[in-house]
Each structure stands twice: as structure tokens, then as C-alpha cells.
């Protein structure tokens, strides 16, 4: 059985259809990347998976149970640094540890939080506040906080979208490293519109189209033995072929939308 099953999922904001009859599954331990242009409903799908929004029709099941609201078993890393600015990084993570391990005393919770921040490379910034550190460091802390919940599904909504290219690459590597270190204890859904990022991080890529958001195709990504040599990986023939295939899928969806817009403008005139 899949970790997550999405069946005929539709979602609207008022009269605007955002997601149209989407069916998809996520396997245990895999990293599924949702790739698509703006307006393809990637972030909405992620919020639906997190239980932060309710679908209009269709259903989502996580570990066989219908998703009806937020759960500690599904943690989210948001694009807009969502750390609480009045708490230092250690306390931000400890708050999540406290929820995952309420039986531990404060000191033990702090030790766990410290270990997680250490894992994401923030050993020297434990007592700094979010406004005192860079965007990249804030996202590292946000990842540590999400990991602290020990959820079986980690949802990341364009978490590196606002970062500079160097920090973006560092954090992509960090995410791969954390997934390797923690083994296959959690599945990951990663939202992005960057194909390179999708190829580097994903085990599978779900390509989504816009107006309304729908699933175009799902692709398995060639296996990476060691996710360290990014340059070598991107030049592999099968990776190049997959890139071309995804580019074509996205381009044909753009052409379809242009045709639809042309027809509707002809009808209205």
C-alpha cells in the first residue's frame, strides 16, 4: 500500500478551480517532487496533503487514514520563513520536540533540539534569533523544526525559492544528506518550479500543468548512487533524456492553454 493515496482530488477557491481531479500516490520513503509553473496548484496540493485546507471533492489518505486536518505525522517547511521570531532557533525547534516528546523534561527536549540543529549545521547559532541570521540559516532551522516532529511525511513548499544560488545548492545537498542519514523513515513531497532542483532531489517527478491545476505526467528519476556529484549526474544521458521529456510535457501544456485562451477569446468576440 502507498504511504499517501490521492484520488480524484479537486479544489476551488470560490468559483476558481485550482486543482482538477488529481490522482497520485506517494510511496513510503520516496521523495516526490511536484514540478510545474505558477498557478498549477502545487502549493495548494501540498496544503491539502498537510491538512491545512479541505478538498471540495475526491480524497487523500495518509497511511490508509483519510486526511481531515493537520497532524504531527505530516510536517511542513514553508517558503516564507515561518520560524517564530520571538524565540531563538533552539527554542523554535524545542517547541516541536515538546510536541513529539511531551514526556521528556525541558533539558532533554533542548538536547534533542540541539542535536537536530547540529545535524543541519547550526551548532553555532543555537541562541540566535531568526532576525539575526540569514535566510538560508532560517530555512535550515525550519527543516530541523520539521524533522523534530518525527513525521512520516515531510512536505516542503518551495523552501529554497527565496535563497541565493549558493545557499540553494547547499540546502539541496543538506536535504539529501538528512534523508540519507535518517534512512527511509519518512517520505518527502517537495514543491518547486526548478527542473534542476527536481532532478537532483526527486525519486519521482510529478509534472503539473496550470489553468486549472492538473497532473500532466509522472516520471521516475534515474537512481543516484551517491547524491554528491551534481555536475556528473546532470550530464548523464538518461537524465538529459528525462529533462527533454519533462520540458516537452511542460511546453505542450503551455501550447494547450494558449489554444484554449485563443478559442475562448474568439467565442467572446
Amino acid at each position, binding site marked *: 500500500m502507498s504511504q499517501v493515496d490521492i484520488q480524484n482530488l479537486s479544489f476551488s477557491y470560490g468559483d476558481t478551480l485550482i486543482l482538477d481531479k488529481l490522482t497520485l500516490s506517494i510511496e513510503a520513503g520516496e521523495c516526490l517532487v511536484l514540478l510545474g509553473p505558477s498557478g498549477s496548484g502545487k502549493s495548494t496540493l501540498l496544503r491539502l496533503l*498537510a491538512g*491545512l485546507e479541505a478538498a471540495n471533492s475526491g480524497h487523500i489518505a495518509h497511511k490508509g487514514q483519510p486526511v481531515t486536518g*493537520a*497532524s*504531527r505525522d*505530516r*510536517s*511542513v517547511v*514553508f517558503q*516564507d*520563513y*515561518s*520560524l*517564530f*521570531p*520571538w524565540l531563538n532557533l533552539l527554542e523554535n525547534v524545542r*517547541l*516541536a520536540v515538546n*510536541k513529539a516528546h511531551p514526556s521528556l523534561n525541558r533539558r532533554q527536549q533542548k538536547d534533542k533540539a540541539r542535536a537536530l540543529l*547540529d*545535524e*543541519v*549545521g547550526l*551548532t*553555532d*547559532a543555537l541562541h*540566535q*534569533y*531568526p*532576525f*539575526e*541570521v*540569514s535566510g538560508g*540559516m532560517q530555512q*535550515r532551522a525550519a527543516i530541523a*523544526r*520539521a524533522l523534530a*516532529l518525527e513525521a512520516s511525511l515531510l512536505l516542503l513548499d518551495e523552501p529554497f525559492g527565496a535563497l541565493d544560488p549558493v545557499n540553494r545548492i*547547499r540546502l539541496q*545537498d*543538506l536535504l539529501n*544528506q538528512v534523508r540519507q542519514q535518517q534512512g527511509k523513515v519518512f517520505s518527502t513531497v517537495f514543491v518547486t518550479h526548478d527542473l534542476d532542483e527536481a532532478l537532483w532531489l526527486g525519486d519521482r517527478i510529478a509534472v503539473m500543468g496550470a489553468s486549472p491545476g492538473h497532473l500532466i505526467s509522472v516520471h521516475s528519476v534515474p537512481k543516484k548512487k551517491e547524491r554528491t556529484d551534481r555536475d556528473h549526474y546532470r550530464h548523464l544521458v538518461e537524465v538529459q533524456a528525462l529533462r527533454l521529456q519533462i520540458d516537452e510535457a511542460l511546453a505542450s501544456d503551455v501550447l494547450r492553454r494558449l489554444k484554449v485562451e485563443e478559442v475562448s477569446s474568439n467565442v467572446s468576440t
Partner: protein
Amino acid sequence: MSQRSLSLPAARPKEKHHAAGIASRLFLGRESLIVWLVILAGWYLLTFQNDASRNPLLPSPWVVGSALLQSLPELLSSAFASSKILIPGYLLAVALAIPFGLLVGTRIPLQRAFIPFARVAAPVPPTVYIPYAIALLPTFHLSAVFIVFIGAFWPIFHNTALGASSTPQCWKDSAKMMQLGRIEYLLSIVLPASLPQIFSGLGVGLVFAFILLTIAELFGATEGLGRFVQIHADYANYPQMLAGILFTGAIAASCMSGLEALRRRALFWYR
């Protein structure tokens, strides 16, 4: 891990805001010092040839200054008497308006229930309650506390509810993700997130509390700063009356400076 070798940017030094420092910036900063000197010079020019026996309404700064010094013990005891009205009234407003504002700001049904009432009740000037409060409550002291409470309650409540209802979605989502309990959510997330608006309300509430305190004391008090000003006005003792007004202003400004110091301390994270 390679990330550990990343050098961290130096933390911005935390600003230290001492009440004395803020007070000195408010009262003795270069710009404000100029304004104070101009006012003092204008006052002096208006009065330096004034014969006090012909126009007692406008005594010179020196006369008022000496009246202030002479009346200082009486002014201090008046301030103490006023504080017995101001502090309970204001603190009661804070204690009720903040929790109530947090609840109303985060619960749509409570907003539907209370906001229409608040729209009617809040704009009514609290001074209109004074005769009724004096008639209704057994002592003048209780009536005055009630009036100060009413004046401070609405701005604090309104600002708290506004702050709570406008808590950024990303923080609400993070709290939902962690499944914080209702009380923990209110105290750990909504309260700190609403602090900028709460402090605005506390400031407006304090100003209202001072205004209403002095007005209430004009009605039937036997002591207090409002009473001090009133009695010296009744006896045409204008130097003392002006000394009382200046002293009241200084006390109010000191309280505002204290609140500002508290705000800066609590909102060290707010940019």
C-alpha cells in the same frame, strides 16, 4: 558535515533600552531641548513685563517654578492619591481586555457576537458615564476606577483583537502543524504575535486613563492631581494651578516612557 564549517554572520548587537535613556531622549534630546527652550523663552517674553497683580492668569516661569517647588510635597501626595485610582483601573482594563481580545480575535463566532456590541459601546465617550457611575457606585473612588477602566479597556481590547485576528498565516500554519493546544496556541503564538498591536492599545489606553482620571477628580474628589488643579483654579491661585498641570504632564510622560521602554524590551524581535 560541510555545513558546519559555514561561518555565521555576526549577530546584531541587541539594543539595550533603559527607561532613563528613553526618558532622556524624549525630554532632553537635542531636538526636544530646542523646543523646550523656545517654549520657555516665549513664555518668559510674554510675562517678563507682566504685573502679576494686573494679570494673575499668566505668571512667569520663575513664579510657576517656585510654586512647583513649594507645592512639591502636596503634588507628590496628590500623585499618590491619583495612582490609587489609575493603577487599579488601568490594570483591571489590561487584565480583562488582553485575554478577551485574544479570544475574540481568534474565534469568528465570538467576533460575530461581540463586535456589533463593541461598535456601539466603544465610541461612547467614557466621561458621559461619570454622573451615572457616581450615582451607581457606593464611593467616589470606585466610580473613578470604573471610569478609568472603561476608558482604557476599549482601545486595549480593540488593538488586541485586531492583532490576534491578523496573526500571519505562516505562524498559524506552523502552530497547526505542531498541533499546539488551544491555551498554548493563544499564549505561545497569538499573544507574542499580537504584541505590536497590544502595545499600541496600551499606549492609547494609558493616555485615555490619564485624561479620565483628571476629569473624574474634577467632579468630586477630595485628593489627587485633578483635585489639586481644580482647587487652585477655584481660588485663582494660578501659579499653583499651572504647577499642577505641568506636574501632571510630567507624570503622564514618565508613565508613557516606562511603557515605551517595556514595549522595546518585549518587541526586540519586531522589525
